[in-house]
């Protein structure tokens, strides 16, 4: 996927004026967050489970090499293969090699954000292999030449009308705007693809060291058809997804569905362990796991290590006021919302993504809902510090900060300035006490009025109060 993160500000401005997008986002607020609240109200242990999940993830990171080694041994013992990939390039190559080795012409794909991260589809196409997205949302996007705007609901930015137009154009059938009819259409078209594909690629939510299993969590069942029908199943996943055993996996499963879609449990939780057994009548003959690092191991032992706990539930973006206003595409790369604002700089560089950790109101809602308690606002602040250290902060911000620092270091002058600007703003506001236009603050006053400061400054009030207390 092309990187558009440097254009975040322009993207956001356009998104705010995009009426269909705003309609979709308006609806979005009443979906996932409401369902999540209902689901966790039904599970009294939810908060304690979050603590356990945080601690278990921390334990896993401390023993990451051991658990990964064990996972590989078990995959191999079951007749599968593990491919270790440091970079996106390595991972693309490993997958292409497997596909070419089995003479693949078409590949069906379950939803995988890691495959977006390594830009797999373009690479396969360039090498003469047709990738077919089978998750309904991803399929719609592929037909439109579009990209996911959300990590679990990729087509959340589209309305029914958009899908109706897209299917009408590509399926050559009468246009319908009934969601049930549209879904049936996609079901019929994709069925043929499932059956004829040579290779099926899925992601993985967790990798189980005990058994060498990978697990996918889906509602549609596309991931299951993707891995059951073709002769070769390739799992693409990243190194931080390993868990010690099935009991540990269950802990995360209890948190995942509730945090993301607000379901008690996702419809299909499917474990894959090696290729088909001698007496199996169906299932893949080859089983490959492509393990991607792509910058994750660099986060171990740094300020950003906590981010490796992420289980990709999307609760942070579902509750983020910035995401809710501008949508996922504004972020300009694969991972949007608060988790993306922490991950993207790690993967594409802070020089190309410095707007993202700044696109935060610091409201803390993301941290409040994170099932593994990642301190996302703190991690975004760390990126802002790095941005400043590397002199990437725009000169207006640097001058602004320098100007503020000049006054802040001279308290008498600071107080005089605060007092006189409050007086000046009160004069500007006139009788109604609100300012409708303020120089250099158009971002505020273009949309709403600025209330004028009331009464004395904080410092003056404080001083008065202290002396009052003493008397």
């Amino acid at each position, binding site marked *: 996927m092309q990187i558009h993160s440097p254009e975040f500000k322009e993207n956001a401005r356009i998104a705010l004026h995009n009426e269909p997008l705003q309609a*979709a986002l308006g609806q979005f607020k009443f979906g996932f967050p409401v369902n999540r609240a209902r689901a966790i109200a039904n599970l009294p*242990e939810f908060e*304690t*489970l979050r603590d*356990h999940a945080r601690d278990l993830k921390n334990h896993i*990171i401390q023993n990451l*090499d*051991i*658990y990964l080694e*064990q996972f590989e041994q078990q995959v191999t013992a*079951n007749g599968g293969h593990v491919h270790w*990939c*440091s970079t996106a390039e390595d991972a693309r190559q490993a997958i292409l090699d497997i596909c070419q080795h089995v003479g693949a012409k078409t590949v069906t794909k379950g939803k995988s954000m890691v495959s977006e991260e390594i830009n797999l589809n373009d690479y396969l196409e360039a090498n003469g292999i047709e990738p077919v997205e089978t*998750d*309904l*949302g991803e399929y719609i996007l592929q037909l439109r030449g579009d990209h996911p705007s959300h990590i679990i*609901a990729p087509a*959340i930015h*589209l309305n*029914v009308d958009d899908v109706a137009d897209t299917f009408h154009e590509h399926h050559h059938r009468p246009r319908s705007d009934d*969601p049930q009819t549209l*879904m049936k259409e996609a079901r019929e078209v994709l*069925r043929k693809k499932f059956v004829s594909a040579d290779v099926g690629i899925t992601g993985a939510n967790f990798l189980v060291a*005990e*058994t060498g*299993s990978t697990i996918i969590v889906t*509602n*549609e*069942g*596309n991931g*299951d058809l993707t*891995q*059951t*029908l073709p002769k070769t199943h390739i799992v693409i996943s990243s*190194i931080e997804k390993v868990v*010690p*055993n*099935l*009991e540990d996996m269950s802990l995360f499963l*209890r948190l995942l569905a509730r945090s993301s879609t607000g379901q*008690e*449990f996702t*419809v*299909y939780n*499917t474990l*894959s*362990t090696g*290729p*088909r*057994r001698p*007496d*199996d*009548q*169906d*299932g893949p003959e080859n089983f490959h796991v492509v393990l991607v*690092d792509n910058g994750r*191991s660099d986060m*171990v*032992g740094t300020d950003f*290590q906590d981010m490796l706990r992420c289980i990709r539930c999307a609760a942070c973006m579902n509750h983020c006021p910035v995401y809710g206003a501008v949508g996922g595409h504004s972020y300009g790369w694969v991972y949007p919302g608060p988790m993306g604002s922490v991950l993207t700089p790690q993967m594409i560089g802070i020089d190309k993504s410095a707007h993202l950790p700044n696109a935060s109101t610091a409201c803390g809602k993301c941290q409040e809902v994170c099932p593994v308690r990642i301190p996302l606002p703190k991690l975004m602040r760390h990126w802002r510090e790095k941005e400043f250290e590397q002199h990437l902060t725009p000169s207006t911000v640097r001058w602004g900060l320098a100007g503020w620092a000049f006054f802040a270091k001279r308290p008498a002058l600071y107080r005089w300035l605060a007092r006189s600007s409050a007086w000046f703003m009160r004069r500007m506001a006139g009788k109604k006490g609100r300012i409708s236009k303020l120089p250099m603050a158009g971002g505020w006053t273009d949309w709403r009025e600025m209330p004028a400061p009331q009464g004395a400054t904080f410092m003056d009030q404080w001083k008065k109060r202290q002396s009052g207390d003493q008397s």
Partner: protein
Amino acid sequence: MSKTAIFNKIRRGLKRGAPSAEQTAAALARIQSRKPELVPARSQLDHPGQIELFRSMSSQAAAKLIDLDSLTQLPEKVAEWMQHQGFTELVSANESWLNELDWAPLNNISRTCRVAQSGDNVSLTGCMAGIAETGTLMLHSGGNSPTTLNFLPDCHLVVLRESQIVGCYEDAWAMLRQNHPDSLPRTVNMITGPSRSADIGQKLQMGAHGPCELVIFLVKEAH
């Protein structure tokens, strides 16, 4: 080699070299301990309570429940359901306990034991367990029960005996390990209701790629 490079970076980050023998042994013991994490209290009930919980949770997930007084009623109840839906072909798992039943009540409905194909309307399988906590069925691949039966047909009929109902996921893992001590079956499917998607206009629709209907034939057993 990538693996070495990745491990080196992880170890540098952890400020240690290769793990000590003690650390490795501790992690391996952690894997083998199979100690349940926190298990929600909701499923810690007596068996009749777990059956009730399974019924309400699976219904909440939009699965349909049909009660049987005994397994011998299955052919008749399946025939009834299929006639009502207007289906004439049943693709079935090749389990001996299914084959031993008297399928005469099916009349002109055919029952074939094979893998599922595109275009099949109805499949019939057993399952390993029903998990009360969330009304989830656990199935796994095996010579007699091809996995395509669970996903390709439009309707999936599953036979569940009351004695197969357990409280939580951990109980089902224990059962699975007991049945397969050396390595897990190729696939284990936890299924909670029929397939669905809200990818079109954020409107939840049943029947995305997997079965549009999940029907559970719940067989009563003496306690």
